[in-house]
């Protein structure tokens, strides 16, 4: 099936190329550095342990979004610049089929990131609270957020034409979305802050992690946050398809 074939090719780019493995190495080094910082502190309270798990799920989501964005831009604009997109467009596979295959590649990238992050979460969170719910929350809410950034990258790569411009704009969007992590609670409580939080998929995921991991609220109660991330996923998917179907060469 062409879609699976193209998805497999995209997965191979990530897992079998030196460049793709380098990105995974960077991801794992960041998580390792964060984990090793904790080893020296043996007097963490239970709350701090939950905070660590919460922080690490947030980092996994942010880095996952970053990697998906890069993969998304590269799979369209990068391939076009390398000349490998046109041969794909000239096969008998439809545009939608090629797009779905590339989307599948981004999904594989997220699965790899999740699988890489899981041992770290187990290592720091197995003696604490709500690890399994945290992993479930990361899967349910992290997936639409991360894949959405991948689709955004694909759309930007197709629409803007150059990988550099697509990546630049995508990074700006990602930093804006992740800004709640940088803003203090008081700024997030302003009218503008609350409005932004309400539509920001990254905020929705982070708030859900907070509720599930720290406040021990059930994952099932995160319907509102899940709806925000699902809306982001759908919007980014529409953008990717609309941009890709207009691509010429």
């Amino acid at each position, binding site marked *: 099936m*062409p879609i699976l*074939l*193209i998805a497999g*090719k995209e997965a*191979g*780019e990530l897992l*079998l*190329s*030196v460049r793709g493995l380098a990105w995974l190495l960077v991801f794992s080094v960041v998580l390792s550095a964060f984990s090793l910082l904790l080893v020296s502190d043996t007097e963490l309270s239970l709350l701090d342990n939950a905070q660590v798990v919460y922080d690490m799920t947030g980092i996994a989501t942010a880095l996952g979004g970053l990697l998906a964005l890069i993969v998304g831009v590269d799979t369209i604009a990068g*391939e076009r610049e*390398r*000349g*490998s*997109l*046109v*041969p*794909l*467009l*000239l*096969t*008998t*596979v*439809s545009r939608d089929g090629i797009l779905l295959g590339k989307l599948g590649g981004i999904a594989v990238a997220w699965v790899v990131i999740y699988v890489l992050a899981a041992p770290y979460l187990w290592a720091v969170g197995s003696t604490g609270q709500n690890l399994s719910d945290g992993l479930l929350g990361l899967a349910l809410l992290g997936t639409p957020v991360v894949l959405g950034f991948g689709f955004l990258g694909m759309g930007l790569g197709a629409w803007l034409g150059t990988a550099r411009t697509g990546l630049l704009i995508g990074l700006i969007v990602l930093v804006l979305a992740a800004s709640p992590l940088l803003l203090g609670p008081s700024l997030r409580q302003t009218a503008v802050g609350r409005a932004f939080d309400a539509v920001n998929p990254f905020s929705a995921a982070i708030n859900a992690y907070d509720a599930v991991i720290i406040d021990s609220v059930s994952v099932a109660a995160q319907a509102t946050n899940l709806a925000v991330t699902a809306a982001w996923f759908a919007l980014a998917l529409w953008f990717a398809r609309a941009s890709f179907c207009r691509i*010429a*060469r």
Partner: protein
Amino acid sequence: MLIEINSLRLSLSGVPILHDVQLSLREGEIYGLLGPNGAGKSTTIAAALGLLVPESGTVRVLGRDPLREPRAVHARLGVLTEQGGFYDWMTAERYLGFFARLYGGSPIASALGDRLARVGLTPRRGQTIGSYSRGMRQRLGLARALLTDPPLLILDEPTSGLDPRGRRDIHDILLALADGGVGILLSTHLLDDVDRLCQRIGIIVEGRTVAEGNVVDLLGASSSPQRFRLRLTAPPPQAEIGNITVLASDGEWWTVDIDPAWNPEAVWPDLFCGGWPITEIRRDSGGLEDLYLALTERTAA
């Protein structure tokens, strides 16, 4: 007719690129598409592939509209783009197998091996493409273009980056394909390639076809002399033959110009009868180069 393009007009982002392009390619024919950088050759090819939407004019490829029936056209078309476009982490065999599956076929090892053998890549089939030279990548691109045994090939700079032996090998492949009835549209800057391979050419300048037709006819219609290189076993007789001018010699090869009004096929018997000990005749692209330069300078002026 494999490709028919008439009065093609096309703009990109509001900028007119093609104003009036004509192109026709028949079965078994190798057609050379020439033109200065930025003339619109790649844009014309993209329109033929159905990747760009024309403003006006007609484009028919394999009897179909490539915009309305892209998959039907692509199924019977082999393309080698200038950049090639490969996945460095794959081996050549795996790469061809990937595309064979995308075209809906099952990649039989022997068929893939045949394609690789035709382009001389069998010894390197198991190595990753990242280790390939530019010339090897060109060969692999040609192998990919031949995957479905297409009746039509569109090749953009297929011999770019190849050494003389490599170029000759590619020439032989293309000539054999044309003999088998495959039509080949060849976009190139190398006039030597055009001279050796192409029966018909089209020259595009600033988005317009300024010349199209049989090479011999175009050279005859132009003011450019027809230039040949003759291999002689001894110096030619001193007696002049009016329609031929000797330009240079290195003792073995003699470069001559034939008056453009004369058909060279009619001149050779005169030379043989005049005692010229000719063992080999080759067309020198100088005539074609002069034609090309004359047309492009005239149009630019």
